């Protein structure tokens, strides 16, 4: 595999040498057919649940950002970010960082050691589409999809012939971002490669709350360097058989920003992730078959003045699926997922291995034009840690339809689970063989309203209520021996309301797009299995209120985009004794598209945190004040 990786790297450098740099960024704008027709089971087999896809024009303007920044700005997900350069972990529907699954081309990519993804190391560059599945969907996506799932796909290169893109960005706090892609497509083959590189000093000024009078200081030890590349190949071997190869490499070298008032102990983290995936799809009279084989390598090195720890995990995955459609209203998909982990970690005694097997059946039935039903079932088998079978049942009912209006009722009951991580199992002196998998039950229901006025106006409004119970929630806490150990600590109840509305309209030559969303999340412990607990109190770092608002106007090559994020008070202890103030963040971007013969040049000026708001998402980790970014993007042709 090492050899393979070098071969990719060689190919990349060769390409970069001839075309100055490679990139992709905005391929998702071209909404053309790709070979990945089997990518998203969510919409077909998750009736009654909500899947939201991030706007592609937003993704192209913010291609230099991390997934954490994009989702914080555009979705109800809350991210706890350890300063400008630090790790970023998610809380979705009141759950913890391990309880949101992250999938790339349909396969789970969470670090097997920690059982979670650091969203700060996931770039927007090199990603085709970003979708967010709200709520428990473990029957479809497997372990960890308790609060929801984030679905990433490889870029799709739509344009026929040869095309390429180059982007260069410079911004405040000594931040530089370069991005490039090149692709070729004909009747039979699509090939594309992209690469990005970003450095940032993050030497912004902040008020130091740990010193008298909160003096202004310059942030130290928060610089970062990240880069990565993707390669994608799709080949239509026959009209019915396709093969696709995807590779994704990301690297991050970060100085971890210390908390205000905590020692600056030279904490650094290096992350290197290589993900390779091959997918073979074939259509026959028995339906569609898909086989995915993947290899992931996740390397993480953390060092500080007194620690030096390395985790190196090889993951092999196989997913085989068969989809069978009967007429227009039946669809059945059965499948098998195999995961094999080989992990080396300073905390483990020797190399550890684990194999997980999942069997799943997804069933969709539309008995009437206005009614969709889905029933899913999944059983995962892990030696010593078998979760109970996970079912999901959902419906959509279009109960009112008039010329311009459509009203639907939707509902969903789903189970979810999370298998203990490799660290939970194998950490020397901590691995707890008594640990049980986490188990969740979620109930949700809602209304969706659609208003369509020809080509001029589309207004989509949705309201959802959910109620979720998560039992045997695993948490690490210090033991009486002074070491940290994982245990099934508590049972948590999370309840909430999600409201969202999106609008697109055309008024003369002006195109308008807008989204608004509000979420109320009440997440509290209802039972404690160790200690006395803090029942009835909001879990730490779960905002009760979060609202997002975005608006975009396009006119004659000009584009103005504004994103507003309001995040309410968050407690920083589970006893509600201290908290972080609510904050309001405004990001603005102005773009001008210039046509140079058949090529396009896009100039963008951005202001992030335009109102210079002082905020923290993790207590005492300073976040950047107002900053500016200028970007040039050149698209050929």
């Amino acid at each position, binding site marked *: 595999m090492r050899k393979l990786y070098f071969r990719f790297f060689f190919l990349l450098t060769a390409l970069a040498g001839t075309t100055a740099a490679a990139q992709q960024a905005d391929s998702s704008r071209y909404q053309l057919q790709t070979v990945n027709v089997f990518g998203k089971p969510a919409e077909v087999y998750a009736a009654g649940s909500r899947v939201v896809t991030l706007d592609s024009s937003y993704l192209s303007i913010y291609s230099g950002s991390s997934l954490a920044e994009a989702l914080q700005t555009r979705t109800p997900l809350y991210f706890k970010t350890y300063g400008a350069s630090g790790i970023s972990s998610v809380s979705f529907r009141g759950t913890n960082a391990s309880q949101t699954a992250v999938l790339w081309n349909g396969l789970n990519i969470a670090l097997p050691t920690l059982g979670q993804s650091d969203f700060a190391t996931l770039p927007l560059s090199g990603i085709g589409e970003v979708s967010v599945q709200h709520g428990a969907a473990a029957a479809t996506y497997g372990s960890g999809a308790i609060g929801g799932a984030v679905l990433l796909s490889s870029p799709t290169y739509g344009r026929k012939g040869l095309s390429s893109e180059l982007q260069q960005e410079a911004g405040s706090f000594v931040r530089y971002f370069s991005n490039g892609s090149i692709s070729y497509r004909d009747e039979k083959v699509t090939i594309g490669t992209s690469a990005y590189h970003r450095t940032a000093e993050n030497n912004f000024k902040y008020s130091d*709350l*740990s*010193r*008298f*009078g*909160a003096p202004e200081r310059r942030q130290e030890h928060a610089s970062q360097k990240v880069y990565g590349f993707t390669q994608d190949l799709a080949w239509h071997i026959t009209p019915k058989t396709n093969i696709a190869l995807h590779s994704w490499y990301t690297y991050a070298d970060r100085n971890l920003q210390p*908390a*205000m*008032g*905590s*020692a600056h102990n030279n904490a650094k983290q290096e992350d290197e992730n290589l993900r390779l995936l091959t997918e073979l799809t074939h259509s026959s009279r028995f339906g569609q078959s898909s086989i995915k084989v993947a290899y992931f390598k996740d390397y993480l090195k953390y060092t500080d*003045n*007194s*620690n030096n720890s390395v985790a190196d995990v090889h993951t092999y995955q196989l997913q085989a699926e068969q989809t069978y459609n009967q007429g227009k209203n039946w669809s059945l998909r059965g499948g098998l997922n195999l995961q094999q982990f080989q992990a080396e970690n300073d905390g483990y005694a020797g190399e550890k291995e684990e194999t997980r097997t999942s069997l799943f059946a997804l069933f969709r039935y539309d008995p009437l034009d206005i009614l969709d039903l889905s029933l899913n079932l999944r059983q995962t088998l892990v030696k010593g840690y078998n979760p109970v079978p996970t079912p999901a049942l959902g419906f959509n009912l279009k109960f009112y339809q008039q010329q311009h209006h459509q009203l639907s009722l939707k509902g969903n009951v789903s189970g979810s689970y999370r298998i203990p991580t490799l660290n939970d199992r194998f950490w*020397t*002196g*901590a*691995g707890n063989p008594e640990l049980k998998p986490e188990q969740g039950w979620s109930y949700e229901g809602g209304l969706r309203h659609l208003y369509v006025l020809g080509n001029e106006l589309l207004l989509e409004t949705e309201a959802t209520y959910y109620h979720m119970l998560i039992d045997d929630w695993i948490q690490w*806490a*210090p*033991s*009486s*021996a002074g*070491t940290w*150990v994982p245990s099934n*600590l508590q049972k948590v109840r999370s309840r909430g309301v999600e409201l969202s509305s999106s609008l697109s309209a055309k008024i003369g030559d002006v195109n308008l797009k807008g989204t608004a969303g509000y979420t109320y999340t009440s997440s509290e412990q209802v039972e404690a299995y*160790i*200690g*006395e*607990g*803090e029942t009835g*109190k909001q879990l*730490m770092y779960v905002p009760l209120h979060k609202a997002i608002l975005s608006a975009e106007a396009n006119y004659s090559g000009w584009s103005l985009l504004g994103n507003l994020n309001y995040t309410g*008070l968050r407690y*920083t*202890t*589970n*006893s509600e*004794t*201290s*908290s*972080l*103030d609510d904050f309001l963040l405004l990001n603005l971007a102005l773009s001008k598209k210039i046509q140079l013969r058949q090529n396009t040049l896009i100039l963008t000026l951005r202001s992030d945190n335009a109102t210079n708001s002082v905020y923290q998402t993790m*207590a*005492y980790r300073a976040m950047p004040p107002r900053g500016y970014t200028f970007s040039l993007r050149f698209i050929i042709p």
Partner: protein
Amino acid sequence: MRKFNYFRSLFLAVTLITSSLAFTSCDNDNDGPSGAYAEDGVFMVNEGSFGTPNGSISYYNNRSQQVQNTIFQNENDRLLGDVIQNMVIHGDRAFIVANNSNKIEVVNANTFNSLGTIEGLEMPRYFAALNEDKGYVTEIVSYNGSPGRVSVIDLNTFTVSKTIEVGVQPQQLVIAGGKVYVANSGGNTITVINSSTDAVESTITVTEGPNSLVIDRNNALWVASSGVKVGWPVSEEESSPGALSKINLASNTVTSTLTFNQNAPSPSKLTTNGNRDKLYYVFNRKVYQQDVNATTLNTMPLIDRGTYIEYGFYGLGVDPETGYIYEGKVNDFTSSSWVIRYSPTGAPVDSFRVGIAPNGFVFK
């Protein structure tokens, strides 16, 4: 930071009330120090969560029976630090060791107003003052098995005047007869430093893992050692037992070693009462008490709360005047903890909420 404002107004109210009381009582007691924390009470050292500067000091006023939390922050309008390990009052000053902030905050012990910060330390643990001019602080420096050190602090300039290499992972220290005794918890020694030369004079070998020490009324040094612990859950078979060692300070020799008959649990939090004729320590989630002249370990616990929670007795203190026993009880490291008070006979009296993870008590 809403909490700041809330506490500020609460504090203001409390100060107004207490200062008006102080005014009325001043007529009778002109010589007493003044300040919001000048009255008899106890300070609780709340460690906070590691990696977050939310360590704090709480104050319990014996007369008003009221608790005030985050008093350093209230008085100085800034955070105290990350992992508050230790606080010591010497004269009118209090020295607060912030382990993961690599500093010691110095405040007026009566008003809690900041007097300065001692910086340049590496994982400081415990502090002891020799006199008004000189103090000592143990520093782990590194967890990689290399020796820790003791820094000599000039208490007039708040700077480090000298560093002295000691054993691995030095923890508690005591000063007696001009000598500084340092428990090296990563090994099996007590380092003896001569305070007139600030050089290591000798080392005393004790049971593996000395973690806390105290001097009794007969001027004997008592050391609680953990023993060697193996595995998790700690293996009874593979671990070695902890012990209490008694050291004659005239000869620096161990005169007796009281070894525990269970291997897995460790004795810790060794402390004494006002008369220094009794020892108190935590063992197997229970509190034991014994006479300093006893030649065997007491097998009957003074406080036994049954199968107690994992982090009960995270802190242990004995009020030198009343003999009341204070327990710091940690719920988890992400929410406020409790302090539980027991009568001298070990019966629970009352409890109140403090900051996160109270690991020690300072009586005033």
